[in-house]
């Protein structure tokens, strides 16, 4: 198996799906000759031409609305929003229209589209190149929301998303693009949407996380293993539909839960998981459910000290784990 990074996994998935199905096409700002600002679509225009790799005007609402209209006609569009921070102009089309199209037509309209969204901080992106946007989509029935952390997962889940007949918000953490590497099998594979993955088995504390934070959680779990703290790390991979079973099974085993995400703490994915565990695994808990999440400031600021203050990291997770273990 070849070792590749996350952006290469994204590109492989796009290329393979475009080769497999002529209905699949990509569109967005700079996705053509430029190959996307992160090079996710690099080379696709040479292989598939301008009709299937469409450089759009710089206007997110129409990128999303046009993708939706094309999906109504049976195409499988993959619109790219250049940075998650720029998704807000497209929100009416995404939340208002796309998420409601199937339900609002009593199932007559299918929306087989995947909106790719590079998101997240820790890259000195400041307030408008770092945002976590997942909670709003997580809250929205009609959408599926995927946020993988590894090259293997991102390729397998992106392929599944492209083949799905419901709209998918596909979140790619920018910092993982070149930082995270992993083995990719040569042949065809997909990963089912809605299945979490236990990335590390353990007995004492469950961590639930996703995206970039997953890697910090694994580092922290390793760091405390020498102290006799045996941590299980659950990677959600798909946020909506949430894999409740995997989360609950892990918590029932360990009795303690720490939720880690970079998004703001209030009303985030972690709040829902805490509620789920309180509701359905209360008798199994051996301590309070804790969240280590982004604080309630609008986004991680630009200056290094301020960004560090915002971002959860391995050290902060280690400290949280020690407290959980001592409870």
């Amino acid at each position, binding site marked *: 198996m070849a070792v590749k990074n996350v952006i290469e996994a994204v590109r492989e998935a796009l290329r393979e799906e475009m080769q497999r199905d002529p209905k699949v096409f990509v569109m967005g700002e700079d996705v053509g000759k430029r190959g996307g600002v992160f090079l996710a679509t690099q080379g696709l225009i040479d292989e598939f031409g301008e009709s299937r790799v469409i450089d759009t005007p710089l206007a997110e609402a*129409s990128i999303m*609305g046009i993708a939706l209209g094309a999906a109504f006609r049976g195409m499988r569009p993959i619109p790219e929003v250049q940075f998650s921070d720029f998704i807000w102009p497209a929100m009416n089309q995404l939340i208002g229209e796309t998420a409601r199209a199937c339900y609002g037509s009593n199932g007559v309209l299918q929306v087989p589209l995947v909106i790719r969204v590079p998101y997240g901080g820790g890259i000195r992106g400041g307030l408008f190149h770092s945002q976590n946007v997942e909670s709003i989509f997580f809250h929205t029935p009609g959408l599926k929301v995927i946020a993988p952390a590894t090259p293997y997962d991102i390729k397998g889940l992106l392929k599944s998303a492209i083949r799905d007949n419901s709209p998918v918000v596909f979140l790619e953490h920018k910092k993982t693009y070149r930082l995270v590497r992993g083995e990719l099998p040569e042949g065809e594979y997909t990963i089912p949407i809605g299945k979490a993955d236990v990335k590390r088995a353990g007995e004492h504390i469950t961590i639930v996380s996703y995206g970039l934070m997953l890697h910090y959680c694994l580092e922290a779990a390793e760091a405390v293993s020498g102290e006799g703290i045996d941590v299980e790390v659950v990677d959600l991979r798909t946020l909506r539909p949430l894999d409740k079973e995997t989360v609950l099974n892990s918590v029932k085993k360990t009795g303690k839960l720490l939720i880690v995400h970079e998004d703001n703490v209030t009303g985030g994915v972690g709040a829902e998981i805490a509620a789920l565990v309180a509701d359905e695994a209360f008798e199994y808990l051996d301590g309070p459910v804790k969240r280590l999440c982004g604080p309630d400031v609008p986004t991680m600021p630009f200056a290094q000290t301020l960004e560090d203050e915002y971002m959860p990291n391995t050290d902060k997770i280690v400290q949280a784990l020690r407290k959980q273990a001592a409870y």
Partner: protein
Amino acid sequence: MPRKKITRPKGSGDAQVAIAEPIEGLPEGLATSDLVESYTQMILVRTMDERIWALNRQGKVPIAASCQGHEAAQLGSLLAAQKDGRCFLFPYYRDLGLKMAAGLTPTQVMLSFMGKEGEPYSNARQFPMQGADLEHNIIQISNVVGAGLTQAVGYALACRMQDDDTVVLTYFGDGASSQGEAHEAMNFAGVHRVPVIFICENNHYAISVPQHRQMATDDLASRAQGYGFPGFTVDGMDLIRCYEATREAITHARTQGPVLLEMQVERLMPHTTDDDHLRYRTQEELDAAHERDPVSNFGAELIARGIITPEKSDEIKAEALKAINQATDAADAANLPDPSTMWDRVYSE
């Protein structure tokens, strides 16, 4: 498409013209039988429109947006689309006449307004006739104005990607023309020469806000120049002109790219059943608008030209009333959706 003045023959009022004879100078593809058929549809739509307002006051129809005053624009453009046979429609919330004449029965329309089981667009999940009627080539997801324009462009783009020569007609009001998405849709369509026709039914009011508070120009059609495609202002109270303009626009869209048609109409009724337009319009203004009523004027013209007799016109109205009465009774007796269906089809099944 050359920028030419679209004219129609002035009537002689000669009642001796045989009913089957074509009118001299009728646009290509149009026969007198089409005019009679369109008039019959107009009467049916108007009778439905008046009925749903009455039913609203009786508490049986929660909400309705009237198309009174817009019938010629909607049915004239629809006639061109139907004769072409390769068109797809993205209408908006005031397009009752368009959606009805596209092929729904009066009972289906009435089910829609009463929110009953069997409603054709969404099985009564949405406001009347909102969702999709794919059997008649229509999608309208929402009533967020302007949102359908970009979707229509995407649909047309997909048709072209599939080597399908469908032309998409997307309808909107003057209010929606202020939305950013109206600009984005037209800009993209112009850049990519997408086979789409933007049809603005300009009734000069965004609920209560008059046109001069919405735009600093006298017309909307001139905007098209800024997007690199042709735009025309059409008398939207004249079915034949609307037919002809749309027919030419379809040819242009299929071969060269987008067209903007501004059909100038009157809104004869308040914005919706929840509105009182006398709060912002004078009775004199409304009286003048009613003088231009496209339905009664079209009927009078058909009679004056000898295409129909006054008796035939009365017969058409009586048939319409009968059909709407039957539809009202049928929808009144129909079931409400089963509450358990609320859970279905959040995602594609």
